[in-house]
């Protein structure tokens, strides 16, 4: 336990980096996921490039994507700092996963609801924002929450592109002190607690968005 206490500031700094990477990459992934998930239902000229983006980023590992951003792009004249690389890399990768979730929810959205919107003479945009998304988001939320937990765990990959996140710091401590068990325990607990926070947030949001019209009837 002493080890952990002695290195607490280092670990807290690492935790800060992990949280920062996860939150920023998560926001990017959600924004990308919703935008591209919607775009894939658009005209082919838009849907196809987006489809390729999703397949490429889903089909290759996040680690390789980070390495390309960090080691290959500078050779082509584009040098990004490690934090930007981590956020953009993980954001692009998990954006592709989110995109699939959004697309799935939109594809499974009941046709009858869209038809009711036509019968009420709503525009396409109104149908999307007032009818489709409020309901579809609720379907997506649990899956998007899971993806954010996955993203949190994948964020440890940024330690391999020199970012001093929690995993990076714990490994340094292991190397310096050889107290592997303590350092590993910190990682275990910290990631678990963060994951629980994300899950709790997703559930709370789901209850808030759907509670009024869905939650109450489930109790019935």
């Amino acid at each position, binding site marked *: 336990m002493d080890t952990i206490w002695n290195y607490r500031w280092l670990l807290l700094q690492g935790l800060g980096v992990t949280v920062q990477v996860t939150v920023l990459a998560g926001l990017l992934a959600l924004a990308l996921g919703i935008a591209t998930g919607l775009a894939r239902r658009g005209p082919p000229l838009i849907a196809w490039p987006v489809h390729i983006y999703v397949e490429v980023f889903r089909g290759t590992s996040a680690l390789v994507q980070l390495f390309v951003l960090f080691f290959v792009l500078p050779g082509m004249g584009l040098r990004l700092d490690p934090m930007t690389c981590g956020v953009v890399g993980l954001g692009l990768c998990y954006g592709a996963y989110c995109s699939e979730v959004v697309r799935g929810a939109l594809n499974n959205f009941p046709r009858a609801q869209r*038809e009711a919107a*036509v*019968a*009420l003479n709503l525009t396409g945009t*109104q149908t999307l924002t*007032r009818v489709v998304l*409020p309901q579809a988001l609720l379907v997506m939320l649990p899956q998007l929450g899971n993806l954010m937990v996955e993203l949190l765990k994948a964020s440890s990959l940024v330690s391999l592109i020199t970012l001093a996140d929690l995993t990076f710091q714990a490994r340094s401590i292991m190397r310096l002190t050889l107290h592997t068990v303590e350092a590993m325990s910190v990682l275990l607990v910290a990631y678990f607690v963060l994951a629980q926070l994300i899950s709790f947030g997703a559930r709370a949001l789901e209850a808030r968005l759907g509670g009024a019209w869905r939650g109450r009837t489930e109790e019935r």
Partner: protein
Amino acid sequence: MSATATDAPAVRFAAACKSFGDTRVLDRFDLDIPRGEKTVIIGPSGSGKSTLLRILMTLEGIESGRVEICGETLTDRFDGVERAPRGRGRLRKIRGHVGMVFQQFNLFPHMSALENVACGPRLSLRRSRVEAEAEAEALLRRVGLGDKLGSYPLQLSGGQQQRVAIARAMALRPEVMLFDEVTSALDPELIGEVLAVMRELASETSLTMLVVTHQMGVARALADRVCFLENGRLVEQGPPEQVLDAPENPRTREFLHALNLA
């Protein structure tokens, strides 16, 4: 040449053809419905009744022929060659004439009864919230749901949901109202309350109603004219006393006979 909005029939099908793949649903279909008429359409399952209404609601297109609503041409595609798509503004203008109530209600589950009824006027007529909700409240009172304004669809019975759906469609003040088996998904004891609302609407002389139903009670209660549809053809039509009580066509007789046995 083009008929003005007032002397044109509310609905006109002229040689309209509609297929789904190899299934021909409407075959050179003709039908004129004068303004204000309450038309009830009966016929076996799969005869094209829903398709007829869905074409009028612009939920389906036709391959050839002509469909007019209040003098405006909905679709005119000839020889299987699709013409340039209609401008969105025009399509929305035509939709503004028509309202539709569905068998499964299709209320928006995330909106309260009041929001369901107010959302059409608010969004497509750009009314203010206060104005739209005041009107929605009046409509919900009219269908007997003045005490359910804040209820969500899943908290309402089928009959109540369907009455909200009727109020929702009426909120846009359509000239033509389409009802597709709106009492078929209801428990028998709930049919009466919905039928009562429809009868009350039918007392509005200017409202054109097209009602698809399997329930002869509904047909008798509402119809100025009954049309018997089979395989996308109009087999027989006339006043309800004639078509329902003394049908001339053997197919109509057979259909009504089978219904009575059921």
